């Protein structure tokens, strides 16, 4: 007979199930990337996911740590990293990205739960800084006409000259990195995550609302801003990463506000066309402070008057 401390029962949630839910939520966007950019998009997703799992396995194996690939978090990181790459990227760069994400940003800091920033974001930023040209060699959509290796401006760059039709933006038939173009697929995944209670809508909603409001104030078209660039991908899948986002509702709102303001500041007034990944990285670093300042108030814990 067992003798243990209470509580004697647990609910049926698990880290693995949460990660599986995220993977399921990413599926519509994976499918969309295949349709928009062709088979090479799917190959990239497969390669980064496999490389991420392999790096995690090898790291744990050589450092004689428990093998943690079963929790599926490496798969999620791999897919998200691929989503941040253009379909034209050479595979070795994608694999290097997986190495940076898994080994440098995640495992060296202690593995799942200990990373200070979102591993996929770190991977993307390292690649973007190291291979600026190749990282922005956006492919034209495969429909119609197949993958075109010619570089094209993303809508964010393009909007400074000409506007794309909103419907095209929503469906994702335009240049960009793999996972960011199809707003419809990303939203579908986001709704799934909220319904499954994997994420709270607080971060994406505040983030997007802030971007919309700041765009309006800055004289930009809010809908174009919302639907273009990596905003939806970042807001739904990257900013909601548990480890690097605040715990409480208040904290999540503060975090979303910060993300929105920084993203707009970079987009409108800095030299870079896109600001989502830098905004997330910067806010990741502030999370410990946000957590400290937005702690919930215990029942009966109010100061005596």
């Amino acid at each position, binding site marked *: *007979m*067992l*003798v*243990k*401390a*209470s*509580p*004697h*029962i*647990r*609910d049926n*949630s*698990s*880290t693995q*199930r*949460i990660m599986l839910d995220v993977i399921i939520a990413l599926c519509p966007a994976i499918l969309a990337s295949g349709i928009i950019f062709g088979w090479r998009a799917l190959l990239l997703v497969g390669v980064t996911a496999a490389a991420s799992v392999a790096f995690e396995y090898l790291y744990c194996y050589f450092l004689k740590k428990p093998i*943690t690939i079963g*929790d599926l*978090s490496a798969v999620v990181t791999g897919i998200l990293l691929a989503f941040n790459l253009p379909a034209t990227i050479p595979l070795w760069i994608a694999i290097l990205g997986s190495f940076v994400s898994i080994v440098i940003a995640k495992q060296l800091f202690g*593995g*799942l*739960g*200990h990373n200070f920033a979102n591993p996929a974001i770190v991977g993307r930023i390292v690649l973007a800084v190291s291979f600026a040209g190749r990282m922005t060699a956006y492919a034209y959509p495969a429909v119609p006409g197949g993958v075109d290796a010619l570089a094209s401006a993303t809508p964010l760059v393009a909007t400074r000259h000409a506007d794309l039709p909103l419907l095209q933006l929503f469906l994702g038939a335009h240049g960009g990195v793999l996972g960011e173009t199809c707003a419809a697929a990303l939203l579908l995944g986001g709704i799934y995550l909220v319904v499954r209670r994997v994420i709270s809508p607080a971060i994406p909603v505040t983030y997007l609302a802030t971007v919309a409001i700041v765009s309006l104030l800055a004289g930009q078209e809010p809908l174009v801003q919302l639907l273009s660039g990596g905003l939806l991908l970042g807001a739904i899948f990257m900013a909601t990463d*548990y*480890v690097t986002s*605040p*715990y*409480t*509702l*208040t904290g999540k709102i503060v975090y979303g506000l910060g993300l929105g303001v920084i993203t707009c500041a970079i987009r409108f007034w800095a030299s870079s066309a896109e600001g989502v990944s830098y905004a997330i990285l910067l806010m990741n670093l502030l999370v410990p402070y946000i*957590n400290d300042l937005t*702690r*919930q*108030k*215990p*029942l*009966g*814990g*109010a100061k*005596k008057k």
Partner: protein
Amino acid sequence: MIKNVFKRAAKGAHVPHNKNTQNTMTVDMPVPEKILLPMQQHIGGTAVPMVKKGDQVFVGTLVGRAEGYISAPIHSGVSGTVTDVREIQISSGARVPAVEITADGSQTVDPAIAPPAVTDYESFTTAIRASGLVGLGGAGFPTSVKLTMKDLSVIDTLIINGAECEPYITADNREFVENPEDVMSGIMAVKKWLGVKNVIIAIERNKPEAMDVMFGLIKGDASITVKPLPSVYPQGAEKILIESCTGREVPRGGLPSDVGCIVMNVSSVAFVAAYLRTGMPLISRRLTVDGGAVAEPKNVRVIVGTPIADVLAFCGGTKGEVGEIITGGPMMGVSVVDTAFPILKQNNAVLAFPRSEAELPPVQECIHCGRCIEACPMGLSPVIIAKAYNAHDLPGLDKLMVDLCMECGCCSFVCPAKRPVTETMRFAKTMLKKGAKKK
């Protein structure tokens, strides 16, 4: 009442109800061969044995005298002979004296048993103290101590706790359904002698029959209300219940009386009525016997001191390999080390689980999902407290108010990484308490 979600999430835990015995009529368990009465069946001072080996006792005879202010006397539930007075180890780890009585089967009532003479508040609390009543909902706090206070005028509300939020347990529900007259007359007695203005009978919505019965009984009395509560664990925890019923927050380190409330369990209040009528002290109680390894789940009335093994045998015994036996509910109950251990006054259930249900999944790394923070009914931040605990950060633990933790188990229950969060909270509480003493 709309909760301020910016203040705290306090979502609690959606535990499985498993109220399988909800509609099962209570059956009396036959008198056991032997009973064992540990002198510690309450919070407070260990009672002092008043009998020695060879003494003759009757039903209702005092065998343990209350020692100290916070304490309760202990009485025999059988007539027979004291066959041993020995020291045993109880679940807290402490060693306390225990009186073993071999029953003669005649169940002769002690001739001294007579209804107490209650004429005022003082004689009422004296009677309650003599009855040996402790909180029957599980905590086991001596009722007379709870009812004794310097300034009665601050109390305006009596809350009857019929939430029964732990899974499986239906003993309080059966009290409402089978014994509503005693529940009502107990309420009236406490109301009268303490001069309380309002009474709230708090029942979780998953007990419709109990609510119907009580709604029927209070008709015409505007001072008593039945309050249906959401079926979310831990609705029945004292401070949570007070907040749900009145919106008042018991201050840190304070008591319900600080916000004008007294909370009494429904079975406790029904016992008050029975005691005032007969004078028979607390010698038996209703408990739920259930769980996947129990052959015939039942509600049984058991004499306090009956071995757990006898109770399980009465319910058809266990089936399959038993993984764990618990007294109380699966969220806050205590693992049983030995089934020879007796049923105590505050035990409201005996649950037996097969090994598959008793074993816990392996512990993984914390992913900082914050579910423990959202679940904590007290609005604490378990994941942050765990960090402060690991860093031996005493001022931090004090600032995080870990002392408010009531160990309800929600944080461990909801953790997707299956971490023993509640245990860490317990350790952190102890660390803070010891640290505070050293100063």
